[in-house]
Every structure is written in C-alpha cells, then in structure tokens.
C-alpha cells in the first residue's frame, strides 16, 4: 500500500528516529512503513494521521481499490 508518510515527514523536517519516538515505534518500523513493506495497524495509522493532521485516507492509498473502482 502506497503512502505519503515520507513526504509528510520530510516536509516537517523530521528524521525517521524523531517520528519513531513520537509514535512509540522503532525507526525500522517508520522506514518499513515509508517504503510500503509494512502496513501499519489502524491505531498506528490514526496516530500518524493525528501527528500530521492529515486524514488517514489521504495518507494511505489502496491501489487495488483504485483499480477496482470504475472510471467515469
């Protein structure tokens, strides 16, 4: 699942370690989320959304769902 976490983080001049500390997770986990190798749980996704003041659905992009939706 693609996401905008890296863009949101760098826009705020935060390091992965700083974001990890703010979320209470490891730096490795932040990196895995940013690279799309790990999809966070709903509580962690909400924590990210609150931190970045961005709706979850605008931060994470379900490509499979986008392909399934009919185009106008």
């Amino acid at each position, binding site marked *: 699942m693609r996401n905008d976490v890296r863009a*949101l983080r760098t*826009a*705020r001049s*935060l390091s992965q370690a*700083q*974001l990890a*500390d*703010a979320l*209470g*997770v*490891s*730096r*490795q*986990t932040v990196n*895995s989320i940013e690279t799309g190798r*790990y999809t*966070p*749980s709903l509580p*962690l996704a909400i924590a990210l959304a*609150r*931190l*970045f*003041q*961005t709706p979850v659905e605008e931060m994470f992009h379900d490509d499979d769902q986008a392909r399934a939706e009919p185009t106008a």
Partner: protein
Amino acid sequence: MTMTKPVPSPQRRRPAAFWATPAVSVALGLAMGAASWAGGDRAFAVFAVALMTALAIALVVAASYSETVGRLLDRRDERITGLDRDASLFAGMVLVVAVLGGFIGELATGGDGRPYSWMGAVAGVSYVAALITLRLRR
C-alpha cells in the same frame, strides 16, 4: 500544514515487559539447576544456572545496541511484535512437523508412538483451546 504536536524526547525508562524474557531465562536456569542438583548432577546444575543467567544478561546488553532486540523485549513496536509472533508460529509449525515425524518413526519401529503421541495431543488440544478462546474474544 504545521505539526502542532511536539515530538517528545525518547523514553529511556524500560517498561516492565522488557524484563519478562530475561527473568524467564533466569527462572528457567534456576529450575534446571534445581532439577539437576536434585538428580545428582551438580556440575550441570551450576552450568545451567550460569548459562541461562548469561543469556539473560546478553539479552539486556544486546537491547542497548540493537533496536530489534530492544523492541522484541519491550514489545512496544507492533511490527517487531508481529515479526516475533510470525516467527513463533513458524517455529511451532516446525515443531509439530518434527513431532509428527517422530510419531511416525516410532510406529515404524514397532513402538506405540509415545512420547510423540502425547506431545501431538498437547499441541492439538492447545490449538483448539486457543481457537475457542480467541473466537470468544474477537
């Protein structure tokens, strides 16, 4: 967009969960040591206590250097906790296959399948019990 929530400083105090695995390691060493001592093998008793205590110390020290080890112990990171869960599941499945192999091997050599039959039964009953408990909770 601005971030209103300040980034807190890293929390250095280790939660109680962090000490669970090292404590279990030491407790296992003491149990093995007591059993060996009672069985008359005092050299192995001392070795078992020393080995399991050394393992506990190694875990605590490694946690200071390795983020993975630290988060495996304190269980605060959902991804690493998930890795631990999946690795435990894999190890459990390997163990079940080994038990089934031992059971079949025992039957092939004229045995009645023990102790593998008991181990397999414990695994099967544990699985069903866990499934029912989890089903009631979720």
